[in-house]
């Protein structure tokens, strides 16, 4: 086993994650990852049709502490943003907001940013 030194912020978001759960009648859902790798993230969106702002966002994640923390953080970063703004959130933004991630865990932040983009893409495909 590796010795993972997580930042305080990661431990915070892991122990008390924000925005856990499903959204009934979600406007879009984005899911990435697979159980064999040990990481599955699912993001639910509720979008204000007029302003295109993310009204509500929730997540469900199967994964390590970094996976849960990055999921929690990305929902915090995306809430209230427009879809265009949310699309631009990078894995570096997620990692930085968490005061950094061990290099071996950076892929978890990729998963979070990508899962959000998948959700947004699904929303845009639905309404078009």
């Amino acid at each position, binding site marked *: 086993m590796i010795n993972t030194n997580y930042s305080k912020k990661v431990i915070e978001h892991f122990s008390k994650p924000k925005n*856990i759960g499903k959204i009934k009648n979600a406007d879009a859902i984005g899911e990435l990852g697979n159980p064999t790798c040990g990481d599955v993230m699912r993001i639910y969106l509720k979008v204000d049709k007029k302003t295109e702002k993310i009204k509500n966002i929730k997540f469900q994640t199967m994964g390590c502490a970094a996976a849960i923390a990055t999921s929690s953080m990305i929902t915090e970063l995306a809430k209230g943003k427009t879809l265009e703004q949310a699309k631009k959130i990078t894995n570096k933004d997620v990692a930085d907001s968490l005061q950094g991630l061990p290099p*071996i865990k950076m892929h978890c932040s990729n998963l979070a940013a990508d899962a959000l983009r998948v959700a947004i893409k699904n929303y845009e495909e639905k309404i078009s």
Partner: protein
Amino acid sequence: MKLYLDNAATTPIAKEVVEELNKQIKNYGNPSSRHKLGKSTKEEIEKAREKIAKFINVKPGEVFFTSGATESNNWAIKGTASTNPEKKQIIISAIEHPSILETCEAMKKQGYKIDLISVNKEGRINLEELKNKISQDTLLVSIMHINNEIGTIQPIEEISKICKEKRVLFHTDAVQSFGKIKIDASQIDLLSVSGHKLNAMKGIGFLYIKKGTKINPLLNGGGQERNMRSGTENFLGIVSLKKAIDLKRKITEVSKSRERIIKEILKIPGTILNGSEKGACNIISLSFYGIEGESLQMLLDEEGISISTGSACSSNKLSASHVLEATGTDEFHLNGNIRISLDTLKPLTKKEEDFLIKKVKENVEKLQKISPIKFKETSNNK
């Protein structure tokens, strides 16, 4: 409450061992020195060797002290390879420890063929497959006695018989079994042990080599261990190992504790036991549905409970446990595993068992709530 339940990884040095070390620390002489101080240290080493040999029913001259089982495992394979250069096939189980697997990977690069014998869902090797794989080219069969991750016990007497009939060397990694179950090594050719798994010091172990086995030393130098393993002997390590085998292990109580813990934790829907109920008395490997092991390990760590996990995210190669893959564990259970390993010297009290069970249930529930992968009970998975 603090519970250390990672004894398969390492164990605390027993207080009786510490007492013995304190007594023996004045014996600081180099055992190769000719003066009284050196000779008295050498004498203690030979006393230890005799005791350890008797413990596994072999001759003292067949026990060679090493720095631990990693060295012993490397030595067993590389040492016999160089004395039997015409034999280019090595047979091991699919669930060996990295010190065997990686040694074999290194041998592959030198042109050796490595054959992995498959295991069933409980981790037991396929004896027919083993029989069929042995050929004129086989250098050595190496099958671990008890698997460190899931506790499966292999039938080493039967394996030994097969190897004898086919006239091929049999080595076993007995790291998890030595000191916990009785071993008669007289019918085996090579056997590896590590002291720190049985409340002795880290950095000590041995390789048992049956008399007459053709094997070259791994370490050349001053000629210690009858020219077979050079390097000034780890005297205090040897003393600690000698004392550790004397200690009374509470195997029955620990087994009962294990039974109860398994029974209670299996009440969580979708949970499976890896290995078998008949596995090692102190190893409990459980997989929970739809969650990941590292996150569970961390939550339990926060509660004062030390265990380990074999999930992909917790490994430095980001790959899932080769043992759980070999036993055919499904994708929803593969990464949600933890290993609880008990101390054979000190069984848990009922209060400690209750605490462990409660905290595991609470935290598995917490993670299953967060997971998108929910367990649905069907007639198939009841």
